[in-house]
């Protein structure tokens, strides 16, 4: 198992796209250095002010780049499954005394672990910079490494399913793009936007149904931000207060995403174990 994970890392490192990915991260980090420098120059601030600014920078950063980071991570790892399934590669892998579920899980964990380390690098540096520049060490922010990796892991289960069934990297990326940037955001604001336009009950039901089934990468970000800002989190249902325009996220989004991910992986393992290669 470790061997496959290690090889997945090698594969990731061998990918040209990986370099672009890290250059992007480095630019983000440098940008943060610059930005926070400006703040510090402005003069003496109270700790409370600094705390508020740090929180603002952190949550603002996630609002802008959360989905992008997930999508970047998906692009750089999307080819793992199709390339593993190529004729002449998969034959040899299966001929080894390792069970098929183990092969697939190792591949999945390899990708997740790789993204986790990238997040440690990216978010860790951002945290360090923010903490050094202000006097405020925001340890809750470090939790976002786990949340972001979790959001990735959930979305990557879709990559595994589409990769296994279509054996095409392009389709895999397109499906994920559609989910992350189109369908999931729409579903999460369906009550405020879609339902005010549509009155048909069946359509509403379909939207609700999809919302509860599909993963919610955006709302996982909202959980992260709520934790940073120490805001309340609902247990079961995310809600939008129309008067104050404040959105309160719920733990349910994370739980249903996790269930979705488990279901996808269970199906992947079943599919992979039965298939002829």
């Amino acid at each position, binding site marked *: 198992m470790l*061997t*496959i994970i290690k090889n997945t890392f090698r594969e990731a490192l061998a990918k040209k796209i990986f370099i672009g990915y890290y250059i992007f991260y480095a630019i983000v980090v440098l940008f943060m250095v610059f930005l926070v420098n400006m703040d510090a120059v402005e003069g003496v601030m109270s700790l409370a002010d600094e705390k508020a600014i740090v929180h603002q920078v952190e949550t603002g950063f996630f609002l802008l780049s959360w989905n992008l980071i997930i999508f970047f991570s998906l692009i750089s790892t999307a080819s793992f499954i199709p390339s593993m399934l190529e004729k002449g*590669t998969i034959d040899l892998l299966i001929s080894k*005394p390792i069970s098929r579920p183990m092969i697939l899980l190792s591949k999945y964990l390899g990708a997740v672990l790789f993204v986790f380390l990238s997040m440690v690098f990216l978010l860790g540096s951002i945290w360090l910079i923010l903490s050094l520049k202000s006097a405020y060490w925001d340890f809750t922010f470090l939790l976002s490494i786990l949340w972001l990796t979790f959001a990735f892991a959930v979305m990557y289960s879709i990559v595994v399913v589409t990769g296994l069934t279509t054996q095409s990297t392009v389709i895999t990326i397109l499906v994920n793009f559609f989910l992350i940037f189109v369908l999931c955001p729409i579903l999460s604001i369906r009550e405020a936007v879609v339902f005010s336009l549509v009155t048909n009950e069946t359509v509403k039901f379909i939207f609700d149904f999809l919302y509860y089934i599909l993963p919610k990468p955006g709302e996982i970000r909202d959980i992260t931000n709520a934790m940073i800002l120490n805001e309340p989190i609902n247990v079961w249902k995310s809600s939008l207060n129309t008067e104050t325009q404040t959105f309160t996220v719920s733990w349910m989004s994370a739980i249903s995403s996790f269930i979705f991910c488990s279901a996808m992986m269970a199906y992947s393992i079943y599919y992979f174990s039965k298939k*002829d290669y």
Partner: protein
Amino acid sequence: MPVIETQNLSKEYSSGFSKQKVNALNDFSFSVNEGEIFGLLGPNGAGKTTLIKILLAITFPTRGNAKIFGTDVRNHKAKAKVGYLPENHRFPNYLTGEQVLSFYGRLSGMKPNDAFKKRIDELLELMKLTQWKQTKIKKYSKGMMQKLGLAQSILSEPDLIFLDEPTDGVDPIGRKEIRDILIELKSKGKTIFLNSHLLSEVEMICDRVAILNKGDLVKEGNVDDLTKAENIFAIHTVEPLNIELKQKILAIDSNAGAGENEINTEAGVDNLNKIIDLLRKNKIRIQSVSQKTSTLEELFINVIKKDNIS
């Protein structure tokens, strides 16, 4: 106990969108014993690769079952002592030759210790790839890839080795080296299962062969038995044959070829004995009587032709 055993294996592929079915294997039952080099022959598309894939649980049979080392192939533990060289194998091309061996060796369950490193070096040396050890395999030639693939398949010292056209793309010297390696492995008691189109090679190294055509087993047996042409004999005599005698021989078998000290007949055992009686009556001493052999290639072509007609 046989190392490989199959019972009534059948495999149907349903091809794409059409309802048409391809029978890659029909009711295939056979076994391979320990220490044998077994050759599976057959024209393109006969189902040879399909059989190996079923034996390694890469593909699942439609009906029937298969065992290796007495364990059902669906159990991945059955593959603990198995090596495999797939046809058109592909290694991750971002690895070097050494890393490829290390990766697949670890997957075969080898422990990463000094002995493991030594074994890798030993095999690279054996395949004459030592100087390419640190080179990314993208830069390898076809023959080099093939040799690396073979090294990979025998790395963990498996007891059973499946080779799907191992000499494909390898030059004549390399092929000879590979044959020597296989014979060496056999002498260590390993069982080898070989798919090949190069019949002369198969003839040189295999103990037993099976010929597969369109998914059917059409012939199986020891190489020596199969290549004995049934009714062709040669008699060598000490004394030369005179014309009178030659005519008497032609009276027994009009197609016989009679030379100075040699008679060839294709007319069966009875006529052979009649000719021998005749010679002995004429006080001709017989030096030897031998059954002619045909090459595996001749046999193969005949068998496939016959099968395609029927």
